């Protein structure tokens, strides 16, 4: 039963990840943004476990465990701590207004789907269709990094890009080599730690987390 439904369940997880990226774009509050990111990580964990079970690849379980520890437990906890300490639970400001961003987002989804459609026709993979969805998640998160002006949402956008890449890797190639997996996880951990320290420093120097204040070289 589960073997037969597996491709559909993987596609379901893929759609959930895509929907959460979309929700992140339209979300104004930072703490809700972190929660959405946590759920996205959990969906990724579910997809990896399922693919590992169906394709009999135990490394995918390790990858799932890494994702669980990092993206569902540690990073959200740390981000929540950071925003509590920095006292930045206020509304997120966006550069372009949210409906426009979402319309651009739909354009990105159409673009990546039409790009991935011929490939998924050719592949005999378990979840060929999810390549397009993974690409869309990467592009949407990229757009989120561009449109947000505050530091914390940008970090979440960066982490969400990584979610999309990992999902593409596990669904299309059945997992990266373990050493790459560990390397990426370590990189991510270090990146988030450094970015966390950075946020405190930026805040100390310019009294705000708005990146645009960094554009001027001297105070006027």
């Amino acid at each position, binding site marked *: 039963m589960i073997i037969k*439904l597996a491709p*559909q*369940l993987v*596609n*379901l997880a*893929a*759609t*959930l990840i*895509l*929907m959460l990226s*979309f929700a992140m774009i*339209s979300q104004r509050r930072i703490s809700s943004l972190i929660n959405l990111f946590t759920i996205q990580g959990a969906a990724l964990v579910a997809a990896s476990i399922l693919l590992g079970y169906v394709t009999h690849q135990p490394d995918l379980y390790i990858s799932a465990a890494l994702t669980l520890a990092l993206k569902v437990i540690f990073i959200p906890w740390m981000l929540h701590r950071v925003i509590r300490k920095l006292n930045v639970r206020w509304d997120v400001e966006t550069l372009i207004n*949210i*409906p426009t961003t*979402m*319309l651009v*987002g*739909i354009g990105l*989804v*159409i673009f990546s*789907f039409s790009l*991935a*459609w011929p490939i*998924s026709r050719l592949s005999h993979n378990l979840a060929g*269709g999810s390549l*397009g*969805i993974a690409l869309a998640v990467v592009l949407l998160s990229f757009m989120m990094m561009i449109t947000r002006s505050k530091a914390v949402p940008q970090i979440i956008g960066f982490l969400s890009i990584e979610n999309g890449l990992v999902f593409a890797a596990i669904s299309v190639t059945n997992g990266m080599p373990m050493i790459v997996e560990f390397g990426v996880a370590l990189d991510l951990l270090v990146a988030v730690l450094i970015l966390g320290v950075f946020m405190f420093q930026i805040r100390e120097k310019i009294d705000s987390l708005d990146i645009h204040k960094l554009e001027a070289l001297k105070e006027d």
Partner: protein
Amino acid sequence: MSWLGLLSQLMAIVMALLLAPLMTGWVNQWRARLQNKSAPSLLQPYFVLHKLFNKESVLAEHASPLFRAAPYIVFGCMLLACAIIPTLSTDLPLSPAADAIALVGLFALARVFISLAAMDVGTAFGTMGARREMLVGFLAEPALLMVLFCASMVSRSTSLTTIVETLAHREFTIYPSFLVTGVAFTMVSLAENARVPVDNPETHLELTMIHESMILEYSGRHLALLEWAASLKLLAYSCIGLALFFPWGIAEANAPLALLLALPVLLAKLAVGGFLLALIETLSAKMRVFRVPEFLGSAFLLAVIGLLVNILLGVS
């Protein structure tokens, strides 16, 4: 047309008429409980209807015949909508009369008439409510259509009975697009039924009200019909949601035993759905009217993503 079909059609209509106030009462009761208030009786909507039908109906001095006709038209639209949505059985003789698109049209017809009637008397509240209702309506309709089209893509038909037959009685398949359209449909139904993030069904005389401000001038039997129609609309939307996303348990044609079983299954599903509605209403805060276009725009775009996912995964 068979006798059984006629019977199931009659059952659907009678069930809708009787059950709609009960559903409203159930939602109100759960909402009161979740908000730590003492809950009203489950039968409260019936008492209100009984009271209103026995009262004299007062009309404004300059009310036109349209004002008097509107409650009957709205009630008729909602009843017809309930009659063509497969609730107990997919064997409905009336259902070829209107497919999913015409169903959205029926809701639109009711909306136009109630808005015109609200403007008819010329009070400030009525006009304001009518304009807001049109704002909500013109954004919610395309989203609802997209949700229905997504289901139509899977079953290759816009007829609601065919959609339910395809979804419920074929091999069990998970359609990932339904996850996205389910969220979109929930958002649309909250807006269309004047529920909390968009409108508060409990308030009278508040500047942010939408539905209540349109029916302020009505009294007596007219108000009763409009209240009943609002309950029918809630039931209709719940039943569309159940038919699209949880269609199991709805009887097929020529299956009298399944028809008997369909009623308790429907009641159970509606009970869970009503509880979830009360939960959503309790957990969310009412948003500013200017945020409503953004809310419904997201619903529309989510439904479009559902269609795109359908195409990508090659469902149709």
